[in-house]
């Protein structure tokens, strides 16, 4: 049975980097371009939209730790994004702490709920894992829906303050808020990069490529999966907390399964197993939805659904993955 599993078709992931490859200036140029783009973004797009891009990018990168590097599709990440959105909002509302502290509390909460969900979900793998996480994510949605005293039910949490150590400009101008929030997003992305490039991350990739062999080598596969799940949830929590502070509210939509689906779409569109693909995917999806919303088009799902179908049918490596493979082919034929 185990042999059959290890020979089963895998997720298509753009070629994994060979050891020693890629030590070149090209990567630093890309990093510099990315940083400049991140800094310049609120000059070109409406600052709250720029922050949405940053938050969704971090969310997609968090998901990619699981999907691209551990081979687990979580369809319940709305629980961590939305759960943290609520806790961040509640902490900011009731304790009056600066928003980075509130986001930290939200992320910790996301990791706390990820632990039992992860422990249960890793008992199944593949498609079952996706269905089980989806169901648990939806469970949290129903809890928030019922627990009106705390969550505000269908009204959600409103008027979440943006306290930033008493700096007035950040609290009133979304343009300055973006710059106060950007370091948190970048730190989250750096952390994700550290996780997947650490020895721990190599074990995750080994589990993704061949769980039976990883187990034979003495790694506790389930435990590694749970750890990856919790770390991914924590970063998703940072993104979700940031989102709720930026918007000033947390709503049930943040917890609904369509949110889980949207982040999967972003990650797949950008390219799974690429980490940075999430940034491209987030920029495209958020800008597209913003365009459709401002043009008064109803039924965003018609477009995003169609895009998703095309990507899955014809474009499974995503934008970043396809581009990376093309560049590599040119350099080393």
């Amino acid at each position, binding site marked *: *049975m*185990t042999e*059959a*599993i290890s020979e*089963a*078709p*895998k*997720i*298509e992931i753009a070629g994994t980097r060979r050891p020693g490859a890629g030590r070149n200036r090209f990567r630093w140029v890309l990093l510099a371009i990315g940083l400049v783009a991140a800094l310049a973004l609120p000059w070109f797009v409406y600052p709250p939209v720029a922050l949405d891009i940053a938050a969704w990018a971090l969310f997609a990168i968090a998901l990619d730790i699981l999907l691209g590097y551990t081979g687990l*599709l979580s369809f319940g990440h709305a629980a961590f994004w939305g759960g943290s959105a609520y806790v961040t909002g509640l902490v900011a509302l009731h304790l009056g702490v600066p928003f980075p502290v509130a986001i930290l509390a939200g992320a910790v909460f996301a990791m706390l709920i990820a632990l039992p969900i992860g422990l*249960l*979900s890793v*008992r*199944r*793998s*593949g*498609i*079952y894992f*996706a*269905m*089980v996480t*989806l*169901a*648990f994510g*939806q*469970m949290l949605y*129903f*809890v928030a829906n*019922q627990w009106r005293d705390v969550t505000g039910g269908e009204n959600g949490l409103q008027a979440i303050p943006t306290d930033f150590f008493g700096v007035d400009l950040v609290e009133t101008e979304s343009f300055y808020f973006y710059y106060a929030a950007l370091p948190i997003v970048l730190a989250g992305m750096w952390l994700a990069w550290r996780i997947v490039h650490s020895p721990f991350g190599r074990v995750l990739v080994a589990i993704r490529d061949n*769980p039976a062999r990883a187990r034979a080598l003495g790694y506790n596969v389930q435990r590694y999966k749970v750890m990856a799940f919790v770390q991914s949830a924590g970063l998703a929590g940072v993104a979700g907390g940031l989102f709720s502070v930026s918007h000033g509210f947390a709503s049930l939509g943040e917890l609904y*399964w*369509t949110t889980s*689906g949207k982040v*999967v*779409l972003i990650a*797949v569109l950008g390219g799974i197993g690429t980490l940075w693909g999430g940034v491209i995917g987030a920029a495209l999806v958020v800008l597209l939805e913003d365009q459709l919303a401002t043009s008064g088009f*109803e*039924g*965003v*799902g*018609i477009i*995003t*659904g*169609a*895009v*998703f*179908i095309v*990507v*899955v*049918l014809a474009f*499974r490596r995503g934008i970043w993955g396809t581009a990376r493979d093309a560049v590599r082919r040119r350099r080393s034929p």
Partner: protein
Amino acid sequence: MNEILQYTAQGLAAGSFYALAALGLAIIFGVLGVVNFAHGACYMLGAVVAALLLDGIGLGFWAALAVVPLLMFGFGVAIERLMVRWLVGLYPLYNFLLTFGLTLLLVDLVKRRYGVSGLPYARPEVLNGQIELGAVRLPVYQTFVFAFSVAVCLAVWLLLTKTRIGMIVRASTERAELTRALGIDVGRWVTPVFGFGIALAGLAGVLAAPFRAITADMGSNFVIILFAVVVIGGLGSILGAVVAGFLVGLVEAFGQAYAPAFAQIVIFVVMALVILVRPAGLLGKEEAR
């Protein structure tokens, strides 16, 4: 006592929708290895099409029970030919994602065309009122839904056990490779089986039409519960899906009666317990790990 019988009747009626739809989901998964995310959307489409047929050409409920599954069969065949087919053999998650995209598309198409408020649907006169069984009063419609879906499940069971097609479906559900090795062209049956599964989801939708609000979102929660159902029953097991469907209906009905706030949540707690005690599901085979 009466109360308990009452809730049991409600639960079995609610479970009927889950059982029929989960049956379709399990058959599709068995033969294609595809978890059809769009199953909830197909359930919704079944109800919407029934409502449109009634409104547009005056086609009543009884005719819809036959016509809508046929239309949905055609829809399923088209989806399989145009999309699902190209991803079979790849990692199963791709078809999950594909049908997720399809769900977004279908739900928002219906929403854009018919709005978010429900479409009306008049129940046939015969099915109104209550049956009195001793001290228990059961709504006729719920009793009908339960009896009808049990009949359909039995018919499908006969189809699976007594016919050659059914044998092939069961064989490829249990041992796809071996079935192929015995010279049976499993691929030939893939398209009709997918269409059949979609037709069952559509049929569940027709049954729901006079009973629930017909909206674009009616399948959105439904499909998640459906996933919980097949996880509880064991996705590889067709009988497990049906049994778990009725079980979840009962859990939901008793939950709504005794702890309305937790009715939805209880289903997921049951799922968590099943995963904890029997990860393969109640009637599922042990999964290779």
